[in-house]
């Protein structure tokens, strides 16, 4: 990749260990601002692990050690004075399984702004909830049932609710860990459409098992294999003429 100044995240020589097992062997990657970047690769290749390095979700895992630099607009997120809580308001995350809190739809959105002291309950909060739901393209479906539990929604709606919940903390980057793996094709298409809209304002990084999804929804694609970043480039290039034979084999389904 060229050294574009428009990079949101810059990763340099990132290595990660689970106890003695080295899961990532030094990854260098620039994630451009306002684009959708997809990580693909076979199971266990380290793409999810890498994604979780980007907002330090791996901190929770005992025995997990990270070395190298992850810079969010030039600021090292692994610096000792970085507050993880603060970091996660800049880099939000959406998970594989839709996981709304078993509370009302309204509460799901309002929770994070409240605990971060961004806003108190009241008309402002109502407006924020509405905006977040609108940005996640789910407002029309839920505006009449904000007091109903978020868990009563369909899978696709739940996932969009989770995206809305992440948007509510006004992040710069949204990480998505296989956000559509539990959804049907229509719900998947809605999420992909949503990503396309959201990238106007946010930088989106998505891990996916579904190569077609990476092809459809992303601007840049990175192929991981056995803890190495094999190839990274424009999605059109990766999917029509990858430079690396291993990428080619994986993308065409000849993996092995």
């Amino acid at each position, binding site marked *: 990749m060229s050294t574009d100044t428009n990079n949101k995240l810059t990763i340099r020589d990132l290595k990660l260990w689970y106890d003695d097992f080295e899961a990532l062997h030094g990854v260098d990657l620039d994630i451009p601002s306002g684009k959708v970047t997809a990580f693909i690769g076979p199971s266990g290749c380290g793409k999810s692990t890498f994604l979780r390095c980007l907002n330090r979700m791996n901190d929770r895992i005992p025995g997990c050690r990270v070395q190298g630099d992850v810079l969010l607009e030039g600021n090292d997120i692994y610096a000792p004075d970085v507050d993880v809580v603060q970091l996660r308001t800049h880099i939000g995350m959406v998970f594989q399984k839709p996981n709304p809190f078993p509370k009302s739809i309204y509460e799901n959105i309002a929770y994070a702004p409240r605990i971060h002291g961004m806003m108190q309950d009241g008309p402002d909060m109502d407006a924020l909830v509405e905006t977040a739901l609108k940005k996640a393209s789910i407002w029309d479906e839920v505006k009449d049932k904000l007091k109903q539990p978020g868990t009563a929604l369909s899978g696709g709606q739940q996932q969009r609710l989770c995206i809305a919940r992440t948007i509510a903390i006004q992040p710069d980057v949204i990480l998505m860990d296989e956000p559509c793996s539990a959804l049907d094709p229509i719900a998947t298409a809605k999420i992909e459409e949503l990503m396309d809209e959201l990238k106007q304002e946010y930088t989106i990084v998505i891990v996916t098992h579904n*190569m*077609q999804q990476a*092809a459809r929804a992303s601007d840049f694609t990175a192929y991981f294999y056995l803890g190495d970043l094999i190839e990274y480039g424009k999605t059109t290039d*990766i*999917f*029509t*003429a*990858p430079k690396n034979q291993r*990428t*080619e*084999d994986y*993308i*065409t*389904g*000849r*993996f*092995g």
Partner: protein
Amino acid sequence: MTEHTIKRFEDELTALKEKILCMGGLVEKAVRRSMKSVLQVDPGKAQKVIDRDRAINALEVEIDEMTRSMLALRQPAAGDLRLVIATIKIVTDLERSGDLAEGIADAMLQTKDHPIIHTSSLETLAELVIEQVKYALDAFASEDFEKALDCVAKDKKVNKTFKAFQRENLTYLMEDPRQITAGLLASAIGKNLERIGDHAVNIAEMVIYMVKGHDIRHVDHKTAAALISGELSED
């Protein structure tokens, strides 16, 4: 390249390649045979070319059907995608070449009463073009981009030879007005040959796209070579 995980997809890709080569073989034969009929003044051969064109057309339809279903059902990517796209294009070029060979055979049948006397330039041109077609098909068969580049490079010589042939033909026409019909037919045959050569170039370019992923159409030969060797990036 390693085997495809889905065996049937692998089989389909192999079958597709084989069909293209089969069609290419028929076209090459048609070109050869049509020129033989011209040079040996053998109307039987010419008729054979015209009869056999139906087989080429049938193959075109069959291959189109295969690529369509592969695009719809297999969603090929990367190398597979390039193969399918190249196939779609190559098939058209082959079919056109087949038609042009048929055109040559048709012209030969019209020379019954007006035999072409001066055939040596036409023969040279035919040899060059047939070689070009052979190169393109070989390049496709062995996925050999260097051979494809050679094929593209030959086009200059073909064009030069074609121009020389036209000038020569024109002098014969001017010499002897009785030769006008034969001369015009010879000119048409020459034109068809030259266009067959152009289609061969198209095929070769598609082979390069298929193997290397670079689109070298409408760029000069030097730039193309630089692109392929990776010295230049596409943007």
